[in-house]
């Protein structure tokens, strides 16, 4: 069975023989995969808007409008963070979705995301956090256990939400939890500065590192709600950067080896090739350098999981394999996040103690809110 959305992402020109029902399926799968805005961008880029049926085009354009608005909002938020950091003479690096907007990359058009990710040096975390807190951001409620979980073990602090605009900032000091055995040294990252007239001189990761981060993030996840969207990001990043710099792929490999994240890059290249037919121009010799030499059986399992998880989660493309892939990847995500001796107590806490505390908290809230009766 050919999946309409994948067909489109591999080659947007394939729409030339789409029936009206194919377009409908593209809209439905695109919505499920959170890719409607991207479809609109690709149609525009490939000069296919004229031949797109109006009825389908409306849905793509509506999503693109939301994306365009979020772009504006993102730039405004980053400008504000910039002001706050500048007052304290601190540096920060914008990551992922917001960074793609700052760098004006093709994958940022029509893309929506829920939070702004920034990276600061670990000693600066509390200082930036404090700056944000006195400028309208508030701590999202997390219980004491989660507070400790984030602060001690994770690579980010609990999310901060703006009191009026409801925008969320994830403040990171690394790109992987320190408990992950592949966690890189954050000072090894290369940065670049992008000048945006509306915002200022904003620091983002160097192109190679930005792509490696994207790959690392996606292939160390335990939840894949936006899996295909993120894989398509990597596909577009690869195409964009290789078109700009011919030596990009070889630099990419060097950087991945330096950071110790070659395994994640290998998976990203493998699945952009298998799922989206990306010919990243990597030679077999280069690929050999980053090949983690998984056992054939493990590779088969990974293929099963990823080739299914990167299908749109929609009634027209879903099979019994998807829930199984989700389940296995959920476990995999946890296993690589922390060693078993930490993971098991953590999961036990989440399974039994957290619900109990939550129940107690809800009960307390209910009694506090009870109307006063005579």
């Amino acid at each position, binding site marked *: 069975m050919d999946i309409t959305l994948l067909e489109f992402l591999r080659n947007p020109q394939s729409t030339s023989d789409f029936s009206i029902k194919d377009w409908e399926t593209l809209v439905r799968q695109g919505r*499920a995969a959170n890719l409607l805005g991207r479809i609109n961008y690709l149609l525009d880029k490939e000069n296919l808007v004229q031949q797109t049926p109006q009825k389908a085009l409306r849905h793509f354009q*509506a999503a693109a*409008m939301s994306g365009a608005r979020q772009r504006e909002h993102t730039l405004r938020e980053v400008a504000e963070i910039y002001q706050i950091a500048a007052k304290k003479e601190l540096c920060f690096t914008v990551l992922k979705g917001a960074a793609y907007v700052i760098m004006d990359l093709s994958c940022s058009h029509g893309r929506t995301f829920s939070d702004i990710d920034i990276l600061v040096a670990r000693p600066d975390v509390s200082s930036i956090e404090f700056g944000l807190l006195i400028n309208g951001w508030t701590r999202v409620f997390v219980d004491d256990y989660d507070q400790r979980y984030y602060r001690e073990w994770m690579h980010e602090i609990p999310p901060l939400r703006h009191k009026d605009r409801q925008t969320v900032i994830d403040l990171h000091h690394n790109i992987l939890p320190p408990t992950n055995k592949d966690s890189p040294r954050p000072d090894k990252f290369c940065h670049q500065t992008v000048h945006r007239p509306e915002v200022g001189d904003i620091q983002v990761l160097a192109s190679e590192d930005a792509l490696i981060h994207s790959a690392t993030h996606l292939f160390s996840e335990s939840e894949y709600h936006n899996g295909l969207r993120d894989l398509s990001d990597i596909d577009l990043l690869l195409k964009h950067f290789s078109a700009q710099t011919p030596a990009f792929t070889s630099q990419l490999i060097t950087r991945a080896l330096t950071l110790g994240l070659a395994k994640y890059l290998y998976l990203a290249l493998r699945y952009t090739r298998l799922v989206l037919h990306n010919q990243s121009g990597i030679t077999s010799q280069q690929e050999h350098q980053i090949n983690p030499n998984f056992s054939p059986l493990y590779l088969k399992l990974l293929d099963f999981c990823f080739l299914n998880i990167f299908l749109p989660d929609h009634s027209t493309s879903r099979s019994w394999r998807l829930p199984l892939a989700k389940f296995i990847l959920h476990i995999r995500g946890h296993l690589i996040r922390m060693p078993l001796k930490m993971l098991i107590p953590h999961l036990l806490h989440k399974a039994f103690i957290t619900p109990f505390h939550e129940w107690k908290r809800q009960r307390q809230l209910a009694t506090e809110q009870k109307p006063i009766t005579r």
Partner: protein
Amino acid sequence: MARNEFELRVGPFSFFVDTNCQIVSDNVKATYGDFETTSLQEEFIDFYISVNRPRTIRRWYKPKVNFYFDGFSPFKPLPEAQAYAMLEWGMNWCIANHAHQFLILHAAAIERKDKVIIMPAPPGSGKSTLCAAMAFTDWRLFSDELALFSITDHQVYPCTRPINLKNDSINILRDYVKDAVFSDTAEDTQKGTVALLKPPLASVETMHVPAHPGAIIFPQYKKGSPAELIPMTQLEAFSQIIENCFNYHTLGLTGFRAIEALLNKTSCYSLSYSQFEEANELLTKAVS
């Protein structure tokens, strides 16, 4: 459980509805009876929606129903008695969140001689009641909830559907409209008692014909008061339009330009009324 599937064409949108609730099938049959029934099998469908009883114990124990938009459930479940109202609210949600080719106002809209009166108002101001009464008098019904102003051709598009009436309005309209066909009444909903009124045949038959905006009128039912139409400044109207707009924040500058175009084509009033006849006279005057 009997499953029912049907297609609904509502103004510029098409819906594919799938339900296993008898209440939904019966009420759709009653209130959408005059709608086109040609199959959409070969056509583009905008929204796949369903209202379903879950296949869990809740099927029998205090049955609740869920609304799904193509597999995604934006609301909390509701008691089964409210299933049909939930379908209508879900359809509103689909349109308000996705049809950004329009400036979408939380407003009733009625038309006469190619002049549409848009009546934005918060719930409880009597806009649906007035709209229903007018739709069965001299006016063509566009919508009692969603006024669709096209951002490209600056016309208003009908979104003709059953009219959502609440509490006392239900009996007022039962008395006012001869042979009115109502859906079952759902009690104790978030909005009180709710029933849907089958739209007039003439409005359903012309639901693909847009028209130009004529006036923006903010109605307010005032018990016992004579009908009164008071001109409003553009600035006042502008801020109220934004407050009653579903997608102003999504459209951004385009939304601002659309409201500008709308205000330049219309005159704005506030209307207080207690009698439909008097209100009808003033509404007619406002666009003549």
